[in-house]
């Protein structure tokens, strides 16, 4: 066999490097995928224990309004594991925060991309990005020392509750929604702007009727991202919501969310007990909700891809 044939038949160095690289990335992929699968498996198996081992009915868990797992309710003869107040609390702060944050976020983003000159936008960009990175405990502390007393002064009561939670979450998710909206608006092709102006649109008409319309899927995705963040936020909310697992009857009475009950309770219960299992069930709801948010984002993204 001559030298060349031999050389061709041997695995070359670049092929080996190629295989090595492939191996590394596949290993990383498997690792991450298995972590996700394990988390889901673990949470769901523990979460379901409430219903299988402790025989709590799903209806009671989802729609019961009495949350007090360590005390047996005299009327029903079951421990109070009705999670509806928490679900409602979580939903309320999430949707209210998104509702308030969205117009501000869109306004800021439009200002940054369409109105401000280049220098103004250059200053705003890092400010927004910085806000995304502030740890949630800092938001919580500010909420507790500024927002809660203000709410108390205006509405009376303790100042703790859904309103305070909403305000803190609003500030937290505002930069998330804003920066994603900015990216979306920047992605709207320049020729849309030019041709809108070229047929006699005013600047405002161009923004409203072309840019925002073209960017709607992206903006919706940004809002859902913000909502996912708000829904999963534990610390800051827990600090200002009051942590009373009552059915919320006003925006300024102490309430609780799934996350706040979880962080408060998980360290104080014994593994395997009903009180512990039911917290896992809450975690399961959170996990499923974040899955829903994810699917929603995918769905919106796909609808937004122009056919």
């Amino acid at each position: 066999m001559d030298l060349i044939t031999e050389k061709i038949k041997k695995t070359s160095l670049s092929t080996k490097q190629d295989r090595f690289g492939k191996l590394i990335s596949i290993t990383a992929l498997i690792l991450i995928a298995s972590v996700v699968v394990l988390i889901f498996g673990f949470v769901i198996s523990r979460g379901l224990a409430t219903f299988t081992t402790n025989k709590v009915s799903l209806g009671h868990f989802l729609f019961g309004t009495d949350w007090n797992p360590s005390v047996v309710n005299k009327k029903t003869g079951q421990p109070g594991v009705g999670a509806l107040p928490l679900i409602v609390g979580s939903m309320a702060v999430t949707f209210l925060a998104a509702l308030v944050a969205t117009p501000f976020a869109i306004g800021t983003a439009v200002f940054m991309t369409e109105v401000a000159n280049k220098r103004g936008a250059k200053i705003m960009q890092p400010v927004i990005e910085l806000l995304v990175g502030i740890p949630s405990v800092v938001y919580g502390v500010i909420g507790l020392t500024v927002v809660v007393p203000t709410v108390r002064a205006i509405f009376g009561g303790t100042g703790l509750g859904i309103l305070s939670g909403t305000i803190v979450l609003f500030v937290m998710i505002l930069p998330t929604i804003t920066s994603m909206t900015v990216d979306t608006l920047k992605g709207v092709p320049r020729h849309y702007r030019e041709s809108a102006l070229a047929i006699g649109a005013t600047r405002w008409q161009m923004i409203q009727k072309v840019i925002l319309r073209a960017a709607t899927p992206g903006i919706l995705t940004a809002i859902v991202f913000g909502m996912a963040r708000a829904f999963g936020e534990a610390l800051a909310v827990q600090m200002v919501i009051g942590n009373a697992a009552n059915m919320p009857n006003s925006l300024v009475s102490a309430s609780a969310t799934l996350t706040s009950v979880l962080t408060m309770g998980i360290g104080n219960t014994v593994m395997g007990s009903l009180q512990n299992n039911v917290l896992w069930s809450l975690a399961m709801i959170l996990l499923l909700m974040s899955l829903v948010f994810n699917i929603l984002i995918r769905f919106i993204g796909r609808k937004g891809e122009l056919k």
Partner: protein
Amino acid sequence: MTKENKTILETRNVKLWYGNKEALHGIDLDFPEKGITALIGPSGSGKSTYLRALNRMHDLEDNITVTGSFNFKGQDIYAPTTDTVDLRKKIGMVFQQPNPFPFSIYDNVAFGLRLAGVKDKAVLDKAVEESLKAASIWEEVKDSLNKSALGLSGGQQQRVSIARVLATQPDLLLLDEPTSALDPVSAHNIEETLLELRDKYAMIIVTHSLSQASRISDRTAFFLNGDMVETGDTRKLFIDPKKQETADYISGRFG
């Protein structure tokens, strides 16, 4: 073309600066009320820059200065009192890239009218149909008006873009290399469309294709390095150019 064709736009001594760099060195050009004027010249000769000055598209940039007189039907385009929104309704523009908005075909064509506040469905329907017919694309899209315009082919998209401009009934149509991003068949269709429009509209077309200029234009102006070298009747200019540069360019010696 008739001889008594009136002038719709008269420009004198048009100069334009990008920052400190003078890109147009004083252009004098007139455009008749009907018919097609082609602006030809090599890349960087300033023909597109000049075209975009005519409906103040340069206003979007910060560091561009335009001077000179622009008399559009007795109105000074760059007068401080001129409303750019109104102006651009009168002077429509079609771009190189076919660029319908990501809406339905109907919404695209109705866009300009809706901006102007037209809400009456019957009026909109009629205008959409007429504009699409004028852009010779009605037959192809009449059954899919509610489908996204982005689903059309490049040539169809460009004709929808033209229809969108026509819907606002401009007096003057600026076309910035409208066929250079299209395949030859689509380009041919666009040319046919323009030929059908030339009795009704004044059109100024920037083109890199000399054959296109000779096929469809009534008058031609040759640009070189920010100057307008020669202008005149298209046939005359192509057969018997007065300037050496023009002769060199149209015979393919450079550019």
